[in-house]
């Protein structure tokens, strides 16, 4: 029992220390962001690695999520005779929730894990140390562009996800199930607000992009520099950032759509 308590205390202290390290690390990286203005090429490379390479999985997932929404929404709405509102249902679920959240989850699996593994391996092979000895700060040269790139890439990916999803729902609803296409769009436009729904969705995905990328780069820099350590850090990135996204989503939703 005492042993168990001791272990619990130790774990709690370790977790608190990690939290502190993570924030101090973030502060140092944020201080390095202004320097990127002179090196936009570094950020562009990272947008390519995190954004462009995630495009396919995001677009395909968006399409299927939208199609499923169309199908499920139709089946429910048709029993109230309200299938004309299908567009509203699809668009609202996508802009408010599914677009930002699902694309953030996919992003953490596709791009976040890759970031952690890349940085972790650089640490394990002393590349980060070597860079430091060449008088190049890895937090500015390696981490800062990745953080910024992720924050730019995710909102764009989420917008693409949402749009593809709306068209997926449109395809299922109007082409396959016979909802009137005019009603689909007009009801959608009447009910979906730009400032409340679209903009809030973009704000959400900005926050998620920041949190997921921050988790990923921190886990990479903080990992134990062995192959086992890197693999654990990669797992932790996906688990922690997914949980953070879902938890933050609840908080943001409560703040935005009261």
């Amino acid at each position, binding site marked *: 029992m005492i042993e168990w308590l001791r272990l619990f205390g130790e774990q709690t202290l370790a977790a608190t220390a990690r939290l502190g390290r993570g924030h101090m690390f973030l502060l140092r990286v944020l201080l390095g962001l202004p320097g990127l203005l002179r090196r936009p090429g570094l950020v562009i490379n990272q947008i390519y690695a995190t954004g462009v390479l995630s495009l396919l999985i995001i677009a395909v997932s968006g399409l299927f999520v939208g199609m499923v929404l169309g199908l499920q929404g139709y089946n429910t709405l048709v029993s109230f005779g309200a299938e004309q509102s299908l567009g509203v249902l699809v668009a609202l679920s996508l802009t408010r929730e599914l677009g930002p959240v699902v694309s953030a989850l996919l992003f953490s699996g596709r791009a976040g894990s890759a970031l952690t593994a890349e940085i972790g391996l650089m640490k394990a*092979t*002393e590349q980060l*140390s070597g860079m430091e*000895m*060449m*008088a*190049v700060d890895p937090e500015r*040269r390696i981490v800062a562009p990745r953080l910024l790139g992720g924050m730019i890439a995710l909102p764009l990916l989420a917008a693409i996800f949402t749009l593809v999803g709306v068209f997926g729902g449109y395809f299922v609803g109007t082409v396959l199930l016979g909802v009137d296409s005019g009603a689909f769009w007009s009801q959608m436009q009447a009910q979906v607000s730009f400032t409340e729904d679209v903009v809030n969705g973009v704000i959400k995905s900005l926050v998620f992009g920041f949190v997921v990328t921050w988790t990923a780069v921190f886990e990479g820099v903080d990992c134990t520099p062995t192959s086992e350590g890197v693999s654990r850090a990669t797992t932790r990135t996906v688990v922690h950032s997914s949980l953070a996204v879902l938890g933050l989503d609840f908080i943001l939703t409560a703040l935005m759509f009261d």
Partner: protein
Amino acid sequence: MATDTGGRTNDCVVEIENLHFSRGTRQIFAGVNISIRRGEVAAIMGPSGTGKTTLLRLIGGQLRPDAGRIRIDGVDVHTLKRRALYQLRKRMGMLFQSGALFTHLNCFENVAFPLREHTRLSQALIRHLVLIKLEAVGLRGAHALYPAELSGGMARRVALARALALDPMVVMYDEPFSGQDPISMGILVRLIRLLNDALGLTSIVVSHDVAETAEIADRVHVISAGKVVESGSPQALRASSSEWVQQFLNALPDGPVPFHYPGPSLEEDLLGHRGAGAAL
């Protein structure tokens, strides 16, 4: 501090005074004193696990000592602000044991990396400089290869070219000879001495390869149990009366450094039930 940067510094590039460092509860250095003169090749030797790599990291300012001072060219490394420390590091080159080449860049770009980061030279000039450095280590022909395509010895030579890219004042070598075949070892031994003399560097070689290190070093500092046991020229060291130095230099399996890792006696371990393996 500014007052004592005068006369002595002309002589010594690296001065380590009363260095203490511990990791967790393990004391690694307990009062190390080493001074390295300008232009010499200094070897720091000792058995594995004596913290030789740690010493290089302390010199490079990546770690902070518990007590004591390290001065490079008269400047106390650990009182420097971040920016000044980075300025100082530009004048230091370090060759890591693994080479630490950037795996996503080819040899040319690896060597060009410090130049691109710290200078605003034209592409053409960078190309010249990089090819000269690669030529110096004999790998100009391999400039388009990626680190994964290089042998261990070649990777270390590319890393050496990279460490020299900014024409440093001090170059530190972390175990440059370990795991090398005789030919690439011979090349590296020759290169270290040659480059040191040709470029007017000061070299610090950390190694446990006695023969190779003794061949090129001007002075050897032997570290054991957190202290410098013996300092002097390789010849002076061979004549040392220290039992410990003799064991190390002549590679005797048992002596002051025991063959057995400290632990309970064999009888206790085999007969008792609280020995090795019980935890499994």
